[in-house]
């Protein structure tokens, strides 16, 4: 599996660390909403199909990436920096499904 890093280009999956479901929303640190914290820590979207997820290029430039990958075929339909394009990636996923 190759993941395209915006800095480094297409690189082998062994250079990356998987950080899981990219749809999770971390509550504000001061939040006392237990349900929101529980959801953030324990609940996962686990789709068979396109999955919006976070990877880190830990064996390269160390950037955090947002990747949309199909969990049935392992095909990657988009990848980019996690910091800027949350909304764009989510939008792409929503319009796809």
């Amino acid at each position: 599996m190759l993941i395209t890093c915006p800095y480094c280009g297409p690189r082998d999956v062994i250079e990356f660390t998987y950080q899981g479901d990219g749809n999770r929303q971390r509550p504000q640190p001061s939040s006392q909403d237990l349900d929101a914290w529980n959801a953030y820590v324990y609940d996962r979207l686990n789709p068979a199909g396109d999955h919006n997820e976070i990877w880190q290029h830990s064996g390269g430039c160390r950037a955090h990436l947002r990747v949309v990958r199909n969990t049935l075929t392992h095909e990657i339909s988009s990848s980019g920096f996690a910091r800027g394009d949350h909304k764009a990636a989510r939008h792409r996923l929503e319009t796809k499904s």
Partner: protein
Amino acid sequence: MAEYSALSLLKNAFTGNKDWKPAWRKPDPKASYDVIVIGGGGHGLSTAYYLAKEHGITNVAVLEKGWLGSGNVGRNTTAVRSNYLLPSNTRFYEHSMKMWENLSHDLNYNVMFSQRGCLNLAHTPAQFDDYARRGNAMRHLGVDAELMTVAEIKRLVPALDVSGSARFPILGGLMQPRAGSARHDAVAWGYARGADRRGVDIIENCEVTGFLRNGDRITGVSTTRGEIRAKKVALAVAGSTGRVMQLAGIDKMPIESHVLQAFVTESLKPIIDTILTFGMGHFYISQSDKGGLVYGGDLDGYNSYAQRGSLPIVDEVMSEMLALFPGLARVRMLRSWGGVCDMTMDGSPIITTGPLPGMYLNCGWCYGGFKATPASGWCFAWTIAKDEPHDFNAPFTLDRFYRGLVIDDKGQGATPRLH
């Protein structure tokens, strides 16, 4: 029930082995059942078997989307052990171990359970201390555990590199002598036959495509072979838990589906007559009765529903094998395959009523489901029949994550790929 005996073997030998009954029927689904079990793997079949045997509930259908035993029950590396640290895990898996010890008799089907022991190797003093602690915890609950010295390990597995110049020298190990392996296909077939003979309908090539509801309550399923109603609908679908729960309208679960690979080599003369685990990585190996070395390692490490793995893990697992057994460098690998594991947030399973009315859930087996097959079915059948958990599965709830009652044997936290 003793359909297989020395006498029946002899009788059928004289008649050209033409009169054996099929091990299970191929019935068409009825319009309704008392209980529908979704998933014709080890856990689903054993659930149906114990529903019929222990609770007298025989109006049961097991729905399997493919053919019987095509999922994880035929894809695992067949290890059976109960060497856990935490009491709720130890009690449950030890109950399973005791059921394994009588399973062939109970089913009148030889599951080839072979108690050859399971040895965890320690490579650092801290790890050896940790094993001593786990061994003590096991013995405290009546489970067998022995610490082994390097000399004893060398005698048990002469092929192992126990020299000080090994990449990770071995300092000792923790042995559970009653652990072992079983023939996984026979487990599926034995349970299927036992359930079928008690009146359970096993319906293959029947995929669930949705749930029938009356308000919140689940009242049946729609399938590729039509609608089937039931008073109770039980899920035992392992890696497909996320997909099936989505059909019921539940999008988020404390579960990720990951792919785990397994490997087998060409047949060798007997070389490893125990189950061995490597302590400096994640690697386990045993030898099948046919002679092939059966082994595996870590998950591929990212969500996957593909029943196949990727090459980096193949590379890693082979290097781990050679770190332990340099002499196996020229042995050829025959086959590799993948199975989809339902990894929970604490590495422990879920056997519970709900989460919807009329629904019962058995999932979250991570990659330890095979050894649990008898107890999982036994506890799940109890939970379905009585609408409450048995003491053995009472800790394995779905809401434990939100109530601070996680059962995290490895102490890893909510990162499923690391359990």
